[in-house]
């Protein structure tokens, strides 16, 4: 039996890719890329999960020795989120330029390169 979280991760990735394939608007495409990337967050965090463990931040209420979830995948997720945000920003900037230069944001109507 595959854990539900892994299936959610795969579902998000495929859903995002499906959105990119069927997109009729570049802003929608950029959002779909973010959805596809969020599948990787779910996968990473699901791999690091441990039942009954707490967040990997120690303090007065969680002295060292308390079971914590895997911090390595959490830090990878943080990197992932930062990269995803910057990619989205760049894609949206490109979408603005395309809208200005070509007068459309439908990827299917963009069939020629223009300076």
């Amino acid at each position, binding site marked *: 039996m*595959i*854990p539900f*979280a*892994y*299936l959610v991760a*795969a579902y998000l*990735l*495929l859903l995002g*890719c*499906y959105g990119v*394939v*069927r997109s009729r608007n570049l802003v929608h495409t950029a959002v779909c890329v973010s959805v596809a990337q969020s599948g990787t967050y779910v996968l990473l965090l*699901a*791999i*690091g*999960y*441990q*039942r009954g463990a707490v*967040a*990997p*931040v*120690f*303090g007065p209420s969680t002295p*060292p020795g308390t*079971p*914590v*979830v*895997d*911090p*390595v*995948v*959490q*830090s990878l997720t*943080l*990197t992932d989120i*930062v*990269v995803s945000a*910057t*990619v989205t*920003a*760049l894609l*949206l*900037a*490109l979408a*603005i*330029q395309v*809208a*200005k*230069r*070509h*007068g459309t944001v439908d990827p*299917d109507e963009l069939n020629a390169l223009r300076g």
Partner: protein
Amino acid sequence: MNRTTRLVLFLLGAGVFAVVFVVAAFGLPDFGAAVHTYRDASVPAALDRATPNVVSALVFDQRGIDTLGEVTIVFGSVLGAATLLRLAQDERTGPDADEPTPLPVARLFGFVLLPVALVLGVNVVVHGHLTPGGGFQGGVVLATGLHLLYVAGSYRALRRVRPLSWYHYAEAAGTGAYVLVGCAGLVAGQRFLANFLPLGETGALFSSGTVAVLSVAVGLEVAGGVVILLAQFLQQAISVSTERTPS
């Protein structure tokens, strides 16, 4: 490629991916089990460096080189977006249009929450090694908190307190500081990005060596970068006008 071909191609690829993923998922460790080899290696290393927030220890110490790459990606993409969104030859920024005044409730909450958001952002950045948070998260809180001024006030008010060049300097200084701290590790006779500073007492503000310093450097960079990004998009949305119609 027309839409039908593309969809068929996608469905083929998605089908193959789904099968391979399910096969691979059966080989993954049990969900929620207690066996986490990397955790068992990284938690003692973090506590050894007096960093109770293990995620920050990983990001700024154990995976310091990765984060240098990440910081460079942020820097490069802000540069790229600013280049893409700069004014073209046929564009100019018009005088700010008269904006409708926001609702009094929005103004009140905005101005009350503006200092709270900024203090919270600084708090998240400087306590990145102790409590959940760190440079990336705090930087985003700082940058978006500043834009409460736009939500509650006006674009003009935002522009007055936001001389963009400062944020360019902040972004560059943050990125540069990260590299300099890395090189300082070499000068101190250790490796690049080594945690060479005194570790201090666990839980104190000045502790955990370079983790806290790098967290602040990244906070500076991210806050500057996000403000610049949002400024470019706001400028496009509000004050740019084109002289000719798009062809």
